């Protein structure tokens, strides 16, 4: 129901890909991807394992370049209309505006406070009070504040995995990013922690653009305003279709993918 009400309305996409192809030394991983991701809301990316969803995500914040051995990229990627891979683009500054949440939470071996402020400290010059304010803002944004308010100086590794994932989200939110790329953020979590993160994602989507990679078709149904389906055709990842959820789910052009995802969804 909610999906239908939240129709995409932004005229210009915040992120766009045109004829994007990615190849490793041995083979092509993604072929001729066209995508427009509208500002605000949740943009879902679904598809079977190994199709290239994570790779596609990394294209948008240039994390792709850090892969070893390096991957080849062709095509045009834009963030707010400006080329992401243009000469003179500061990739590091870009990454602080287009944040990323990984499949497994990666916390630094430091206190909760230091973890949240890890990135901000280095990107912005904030006063002590400013940092404290940002800390609370980020932890509240990640729905973690109530749980950790009394132990901000405890080691972050003491948190549960679900809490660690929200801590990573807080760390990203502390940078006040415009886009948050999420790579299967709930795959390591139990149903309750998953529900918590899902609520959170919906709330964040009011202000942020969320690009959500998921294996779970039901999750995509619940959260996404628009969905792109990445499938493997001729052994190369391709975006088969994009669209608003209901029409895509009811009348899919890659039924085998839907079957695959649906079966996964139910036996989980």
């Amino acid at each position, binding site marked *: 129901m909610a999906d239908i009400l939240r129709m995409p309305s932004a005229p210009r996409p915040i992120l766009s890909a045109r004829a994007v192809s990615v190849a490793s030394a041995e083979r092509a991983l993604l072929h001729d991807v066209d995508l427009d991701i509208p500002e605000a809301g949740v943009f879902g990316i679904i598809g079977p394992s190994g199709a290239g969803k994570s790779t596609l995500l990394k294209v948008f914040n240039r994390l792709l370049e850090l892969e070893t051995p390096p991957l080849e990229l062709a095509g045009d990627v834009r963030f707010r209309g400006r080329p992401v891979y243009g000469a003179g683009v500061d990739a590091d500054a870009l990454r*602080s505006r287009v944040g990323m949440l990984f499949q497994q939470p990666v916390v*630094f071996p430091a206190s909760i406070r230091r973890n949240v402020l890890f990135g901000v400290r280095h990107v912005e010059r904030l006063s002590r009070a400013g940092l404290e304010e940002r800390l609370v803002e980020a932890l509240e944004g990640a729905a973690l504040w109530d749980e950790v308010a009394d132990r901000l100086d405890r080691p972050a*590794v003491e948190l549960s995995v679900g809490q660690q994932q929200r801590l990573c989200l807080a760390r990203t939110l502390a940078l006040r990013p415009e886009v948050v790329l999420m790579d299967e953020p709930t795959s390591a979590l139990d149903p309750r922690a998953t529900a918590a993160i899902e609520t959170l994602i919906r709330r964040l989507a009011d202000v942020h653009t969320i690009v959500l990679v998921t294996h779970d078709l039901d999750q995509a149904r619940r959260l996404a305003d628009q969905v792109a389906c990445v499938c493997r055709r001729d052994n190369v990842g391709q975006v088969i279709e994009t669209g608003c959820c209901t029409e895509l789910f009811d009348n899919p052009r890659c039924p085998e993918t839907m079957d695959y995802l649906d079966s996964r969804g139910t036996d989980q």
Partner: protein
Amino acid sequence: MRSSLARWASYGATGLTLVFGTALLVSFVAQSLPVWRHEGLAYVTGSVWHFRSEQFGVLPMIYGSVVVSIVALALAAPLAVGAAIWSAEYLNGRNRWWFKVPIELLAGIPSVVYGLLGVLLLRNWIYELFERFEPLSGDTLLTAGVLLAVMILPTVMTLADDALRGVASSQRRAARALGFTQAEGVLRVSLPQAAPGLVAALLLGLGRAMGETIAVFLVVGRQDSQADYGLRSWLEAGQTLTSKLGSSETFLAYGDPLHWSAIVGLGLVLLALVLSLTLAAGRWLPETGLARNRRA
């Protein structure tokens, strides 16, 4: 059953080590008693070693050992850690191999070969480089220190590289995803997390420098007595505990109980220095986050 056997075996090994170590220490102390009775505390504070007049002051050798080790570490540490950062953080697989293998080969060269190179080249270079300070020759404490720096460089570099590569790559990637440049990631994530391993690498290098004998022997000048302990003395001939122990005086001393005990005392002092270094390393390590990282 199995585990209790393993437990007893490890108790046994530990016990044997303790017994052996204690026996060693006791025999060193016992054999060096005559010189302690003869010199008292002056054995470690005296600056003159002249066995014909039965004067045994070890301070020049302690000083020499400390100076050459510190010079070696001060020169080797930045180079070794820098090279390790380069190898672990910036080079990929194949390039790293080409970088590391030659360096590891250097670690296998016998120390006497380094000593000969020191005699052939280094002491002349040092002499010419510092000519305006008018050193008597190129055989100086500084020469020994520089030579030791070259010798410990491969070991320290290899261990530091291991320490850095022990930091999970997901940690680096998380830092990059927050907008850190590669250099900032090294500075804020890799180095702090590898710190315990880096310190261990440096301390091991220091221990190796302190224990090295033959290469130092060949270039240190081997002058027993020391009049001044200022910076100037670095450009003069000196003596270290090991080069003294390695000299022919050790055989000469064997017949004379007092002289012999003075020589054994050198070994005792060296043992004490190296042991306190090891203990310092052990004390320092658990507090620096190794334990924290393990849990993570």
